[in-house]
């Protein structure tokens, strides 16, 4: 198993290069030059463009640019944005915030989603099931920006429970409402995946055994049933952390959270490869780690799964 983990960690290396290159190439391929929108309605002075082009190696071919980027990356320099901010510093401030937000979201969706899923999976058809069905469908069909704004307006402006925007370095508490907005779609996924999985397993023979042993319901469900049903849900949650971190653009925008989503979005608009690549590399790393963790958890949750 150690060998498996080591192998997986080794796989990080090619994936790292693959991803960075891919992203680099993609940002590079985004049409439009970075300076066309820099000077308002006018074209920018050629001298400015030349200087920036040289400074950011924009005239080199893709591979040279990429290797120069890697070179500085390995010397600890994440590069600079066109407005002179250090990408490394910006990521360092944004990263923890987004991570926190995504964690809050994952936590919320896991708790609410799992609870709803287990309850409906066990009860089967009925009022609760329909209620959850309809409310999850609502969450699915409302885009995040609507959910986020509605929450902001209702809780923030109308009821005054929260502030419309969070502070510069938001605490977990402040991130609960943004987390709900961010995690709402995934919550629907979690609830429904759990429900299915539970419904699938609740007739299993070993559940009967657990009942026959006279175990209290809470144990039968919470331990025997859940552990056997949680794998698809866990898979989803595992991939979701990364997705939430990268997909928090809208939520971050609405609650004015200085996170990675905004960073990527601005980087993309300004065609700043350094920012985009930097952030995406981190996101892919999160993905890789999460999928490693999830894969390891599979083996913990279901000992029949073997990796060797």
């Amino acid at each position, binding site marked *: 198993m150690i060998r498996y983990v080591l*192998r*997986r960690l080794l*796989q990080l290396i090619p*994936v790292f290069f*693959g*991803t960075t290159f*891919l*992203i680099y190439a*993609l*940002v590079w*391929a*985004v*049409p*439009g030059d970075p300076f066309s929108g820099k000077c308002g309605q006018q074209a920018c002075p050629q001298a400015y463009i030349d200087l920036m082009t040289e400074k950011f190696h924009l005239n080199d071919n893709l591979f040279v640019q990429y290797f120069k980027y890697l070179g500085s990356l390995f010397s600890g320099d994440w590069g600079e944005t066109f407005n002179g901010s250090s990408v490394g510093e910006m990521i360092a401030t944004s990263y923890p915030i987004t991570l926190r937000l995504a964690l809050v979201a994952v936590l919320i969706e896991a708790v609410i989603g799992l609870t709803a899923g287990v309850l409906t999976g066990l009860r089967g058809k009925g009022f609760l099931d329909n209620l959850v*069905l*309809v409310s*999850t*469908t*609502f969450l*699915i*069909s*409302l*885009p995040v*920006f*609507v959910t986020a*704004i509605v929450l902001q*307006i209702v809780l923030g402006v109308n009821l005054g429970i929260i502030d419309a925007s969070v502070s510069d370095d938001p605490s977990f508490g402040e991130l609960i409402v943004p987390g709900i907005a961010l995690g709402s*779609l995934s919550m629907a*996924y979690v609830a*429904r*995946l759990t429900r*299915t*999985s539970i*419904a*699938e397993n609740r*007739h299993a023979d070993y559940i009967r055994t657990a009942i026959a042993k006279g175990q209290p319901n809470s144990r039968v469900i919470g331990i025997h049933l859940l552990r056997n049903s949680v*794998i*698809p849900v*866990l*898979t*989803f949650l*595992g*991939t979701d952390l*990364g*997705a939430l971190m990268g997909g928090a*653009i*809208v939520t971050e925008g609405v609650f004015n959270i200085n996170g990675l989503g905004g960073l*990527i*979005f601005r980087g*993309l608009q300004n065609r700043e490869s350094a920012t*985009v690549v930097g952030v*995406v590399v981190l*996101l*892919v790393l999160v*993905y*890789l780690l999460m*999928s490693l963790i999830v894969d390891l958890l*599979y083996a913990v949750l279901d000992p*029949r*799964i073997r990796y060797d």
Partner: protein
Amino acid sequence: MTDPNLVGGGGADAAQLSHVDSSADAGPKKPRSLWGDAWRQLRRKPTFVISALLILLIVLIAIAPGLFSHRPAGYSDLAHANEGPSADAWFGYDNQGYDVYARTIYGARASLLVGVFATLLTVLFGSLIGIVAGYYGRIVDSLLSRLGDIFAGLPFVLGAIVILTTFNAPGTNPGQVTIIVQVVCSIAVLTWPVAMRIMRSATLVAKQLDYVKAARALGASTPRIVFRHLLPNTLAPVLVYATIALGAAIGAEATLAYLGIGVRPPVVSWGVMISDARDYFRAVPHMLLFPGAFVTITVLAFVMLGDGIRDALDPKSR
């Protein structure tokens, strides 16, 4: 009656069997399969019938919107802008003076196309990769999984901008079909890893089971094991994922439209309407309400359909 080669101890004579046969309606029962059974079961389920009818209705709207609305999608009358529902315009007018009802009706086509096809592509492609990765394991799994990780790590907006702008040089105005195909493909390309991982996990669990062993012992080929044995047993979570992904795809389409790279005028979609309504829904709620309701109903129909199918495919839940 019996194969002469298989003279078993149980070879019952006709008189004795006559009783058994009389228990069936007439003659031997036709063999059925899981899918046949599922279908029989589905037909009798009211939720399935309702959701199927709903979907049919929406499809009909998508195919022939003209039957449902006498106004074209592009009808606008600024004089009525922001007016609420009335006999004249059932869903009211939006901030551009568009008739919300007409647009909702005409928006069904693009939304449904994007939702259904993006989901189909995502799920088919993702599941295939996932089942292959899970079944073969080892190097195949590593390669496919890491590929999935890379694509999953790619932020949707970045990927979509790159894909859609590379195919449509900025400023050009591609045809409706082209743009919908492109939107579908970009959503699929960027979201398949989730379906893949779900399928992979289900496969990892299912492939350990004895019946897979039994099938191997029979000499079943890999595709057979995968499609006949693993797939029906791993389908449930993916099916659930798919029904939700359908809603998410409609939402993703809204995001793309908002970024100016998705479907664009004169094509209308619910996503476009919702994204247009984002700034106005507080003052003009019906701008969001009606397209939103249509999305909700559509997604609900598909979720119910998916649930029905899942139930039907689970012999134990009958």
